[in-house]
C-alpha cells in the first residue's frame, strides 16, 4: 500500500519560499502528474518525496507512515532524473543491476576493495543475473547490456534509466521530466511506454512535467502548480473541462484558452468597444453575481470564424496570423475591424485570440471575420482573483 499524503508541505530556501502549504492525497496505484511552468517548484516537490531535499514543514506520508526523516533508500522509491544520471563508467548491465547490488550489500561491503570484489560477485549471482536479463528484455535493451551509456542513443539511455528504476520493484516511482531531452517523435513513443509500464507494475507514479500534453495523456490525476502553490487537483478531464482558475485554463490546452475581458454595458457584454452579439443572458447573470466586468474564457477549438447564426455569441474581429498545420489551422484574430489595433512588435501578440479550425478551410490574414462560440463553451472567471465563477 503506497498511497501518498501531502499535509501542508512547505519548502523554503532562506527567505525564499519555493513550496507553500502543499496538501493532497493520492491513492495507491495512481499516475500523478505534477504540472506547472518552469521554476514553479515541481522538482523541489519531487525531491522532497524522494528524500533528496529536506522538508521545511508539514508532513509527508507513504500509506500510514510519516517518511519526513527517512533516507531515499529507506523510502523504497525509484527516481528517474531529467538527465538520466546513468553511471558513465559502468556498462548498461552494471547500471541496471546497481540498485539490486546495493540492496544486497552488507555493511562491510562498503569498505574499500572489498566492495569492488563483492560487486562483481553479486553481478554474477544467478538470481540477480536473471532479473537483469528479464528487465533488459522488457525494455529491449538485451543487445546493449555490454555497452557504456555514451554509446547509446537518447531513447536507449532513457530506457536504461527506466530499467534501473524498475529492477528493485519500488513502492513509488518518481520521474522528473524524463522526456524533455528527447525529440518529439521519440517523446511520443516513450510516453506510451511509460504509460504501459504503469499499467504493468501497478504502483504509484509521480511524474513531473511542464508539458501539458504529457500530463493529459499519461496522468490519472494531475496537480497543476504555479509558484509553489497548488492551483488545481483533479483528473485530466476535470482539469480540462472545469479549470479552477484562469491560470489552469490557459496552461492546459494548446493554443491556450482565449480570455476576453468583458464589461457589462446597456444589458450586453462588450469586449473593449466591440459588443458581443446575443450576450444579453450572460450580461444578466454577470450582474446577478454582483460584477460589472468578467473574464470570458473560450477554448480555441470551440471558436468558429464566419459562421454566426442561431443563438451563437459572436464578436466582430479580423484575422492576423494564419498557421496551416495540415490537419488543422490555427488562426490568430483580434477583436474589432481591420486596422483597429496596433499590430507590430510586442503589440502584435497582445490581445491576440486563437481559433482552431479544421485544416480544409482557407483563411487570409488581415481580413474581417466574426468570432463565434456557443453558450455552453463559455467559462467565467473573476477578473480580479482569476477564480472560476459557477453560473
Amino acid at each position, binding site marked *: 500500500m503506497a498511497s501518498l499524503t501531502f499535509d501542508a508541505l512547505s519548502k523554503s530556501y532562506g527567505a525564499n519560499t519555493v513550496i507553500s502549504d502543499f496538501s493532497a492525497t493520492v491513492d495507491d496505484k495512481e499516475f500523478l502528474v505534477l504540472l506547472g511552468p518552469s521554476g514553479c517548484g515541481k522538482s523541489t516537490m519531487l525531491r522532497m518525496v524522494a528524500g533528496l531535499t529536506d522538508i521545511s514543514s508539514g508532513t509527508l506520508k507513504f500509506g500510514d507512515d510519516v517518511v519526513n526523516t527517512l533516507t*531515499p533508500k529507506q523510502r523504497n522509491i525509484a527516481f528517474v532524473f531529467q*538527465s538520466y544520471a546513468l553511471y558513465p563508467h559502468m556498462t548498461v548491465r552494471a547500471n541496471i543491476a546497481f540498485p539490486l547490488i546495493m540492496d544486497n550489500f552488507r555493511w562491510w561491503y562498503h569498505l*574499500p576493495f572489498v566492495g569492488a570484489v563483492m560487486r562483481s560477485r553479486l553481478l554474477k549471482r544467478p538470481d540477480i543475473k536473471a532479473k537483469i536479463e528479464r528487465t533488459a528484455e522488457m525494455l529491449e535493451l538485451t543487445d546493449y547490456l555490454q555497452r557504456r551509456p*555514451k554509446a547509446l*542513443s537518447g531513447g536507449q539511455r532513457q530506457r536504461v534509466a527506466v530499467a534501473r528504476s524498475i529492477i528493485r520493484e519500488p513502492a513509488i516511482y518518481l520521474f522528473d521530466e524524463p522526456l524533455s531531452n*528527447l525529440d518529439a517523435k521519440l517523446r511520443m513513443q516513450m510516453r506510451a511506454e511509460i504509460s504501459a509500464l504503469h499499467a504493468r507494475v501497478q504502483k504509484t507514479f509521480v511524474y513531473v512535467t511542464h508539458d501539458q500534453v504529457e500530463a493529459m495523456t499519461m496522468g490519472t490525476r494531475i496537480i497543476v502548480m504555479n509558484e509553489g502553490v497548488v492551483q488545481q487537483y483533479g483528473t485530466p478531464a476535470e482539469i480540462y473541462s472545469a479549470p479552477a482558475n484562469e491560470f489552469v485554463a490557459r496552461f492546459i490546452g494548446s493554443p491556450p484558452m482565449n480570455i476576453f475581458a468583458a464589461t457589462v454595458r446597456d444589458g450586453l457584454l462588450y469586449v473593449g468597444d466591440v459588443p458581443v452579439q446575443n450576450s444579453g443572458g450572460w450580461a444578466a447573470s454577470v450582474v446577478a453575481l454582483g460584477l460589472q466586468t468578467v473574464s470570458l474564457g473560450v477554448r480555441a477549438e470551440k471558436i468558429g470564424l464566419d459562421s454566426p447564426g442561431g443563438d451563437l455569441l459572436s464578436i466582430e474581429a479580423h484575422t492576423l496570423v494564419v498557421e496551416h498545420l495540415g490537419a488543422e489551422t490555427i488562426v490568430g484574430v483580434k477583436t474589432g475591424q481591420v486596422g483597429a489595433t496596433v499590430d507590430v512588435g510586442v503589440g502584435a501578440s497582445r490581445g491576440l485570440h486563437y481559433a482552431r479550425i479544421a485544416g480544409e478551410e482557407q483563411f487570409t490574414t488581415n481580413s474581417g471575420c466574426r468570432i463565434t462560440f456557443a453558450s455552453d463553451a463559455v467559462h467565467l472567471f473573476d477578473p480580479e482573483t482569476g477564480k472560476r465563477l459557477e453560473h
Partner: protein
Amino acid sequence: MIGRRNLSIGVRTLLALALVILAGFPVFWMINTAMTPVGDLYANNQRIVPDFSRTLNIFQVLVSDSPFLRWLGNSALVAGGTTMLSLLLACLAAYALSRYKFVGKGLMTFGFFATQMLPEALLIVPLYSMFMTLGLLNELYGLVLVNTAFAMPVAVFLLKSAMDTVPYEIEESARVDGCNALTILQVMFIPLIAPSLAAAAVITFFDGWNEYLFATTFIHDTANWVASTGLASFIGEFTTPLDMVFSGAIVFTIPAAIFFLLMQRKIVAGLTAGSVKG
C-alpha cells in the same frame, strides 16, 4: 601555392627539430658523459659522438661498490608511500571540500594553500627537532610523512576541481540506490576522476622521488639513504667521478620515467561523457 605550403611545413619541422634538440641535448649529454672514461673527461678530451663500445658503462653505478640499488629501493618506498598516503588523504579531503558545507571550510582551504607558501628550508629546523622528539629521524616513513605534507595539498586542489565536474545527479542517484558517502566516493567519484587521479599520482610520486633536502637532513644511516642523497654523495671533497655521477643520474631517472609512462595512459579525458544529457 604548393611551394608556399611546403615552405611552411619545412619551417615548422625545423622549429620542432630545434625544440627536440633543446630538450633532448641534456639527456644526450648525460648518456654521453656516462660512457666516457673519467680520465678523458678531465683531459679536455670529451667526445661529441659517443664511444658505443662503452655502452654498458651507462649502468656502471649498479656494479660499483656503492649500494645504489638499495638507495633506489628506498626512494621507491618513499615515493610510493608518499603517493599512496597523499592520494588517500587527498581523495577524502577533496570530496569534503567539493560536496559538503562545513564550518571552517575556507580556513581549511587556506591551510592547504599555506603549506605551499612556506619554503622548505625555513621549516627544516623545527621539523628536525619535532622528528627527533617523535623518533622519526633516520626512518623512511618519516620521509613519507614530511613529503606527504607538501605533496598532498597540490593533489587536493587537483582532485577537488575534478570532483566539482561530477554531476550532482549521479551522486543523488547513487544515494537513492542505497550508497553511503564512502561508497559513493569509491564507486562513483574515483572511477570518474581517474585521469586527474593519475595526474595527481605523477605529481606526488615525483615529489617523493626527487626530494633531497629532507632526505639528506633527516637520514643519517647510509643504508637508509634514498637515491637522491646517494647520488649527491658521489660528489667528493677531493674527487668527483663524473662518469659515475652521470651513470647514477640515468639510473635514477629510469624508474620515474617508467612510472610516468604508465600513468600517462590513464590521463585521458572524456570519461564523464554520456552520463548526463544526450
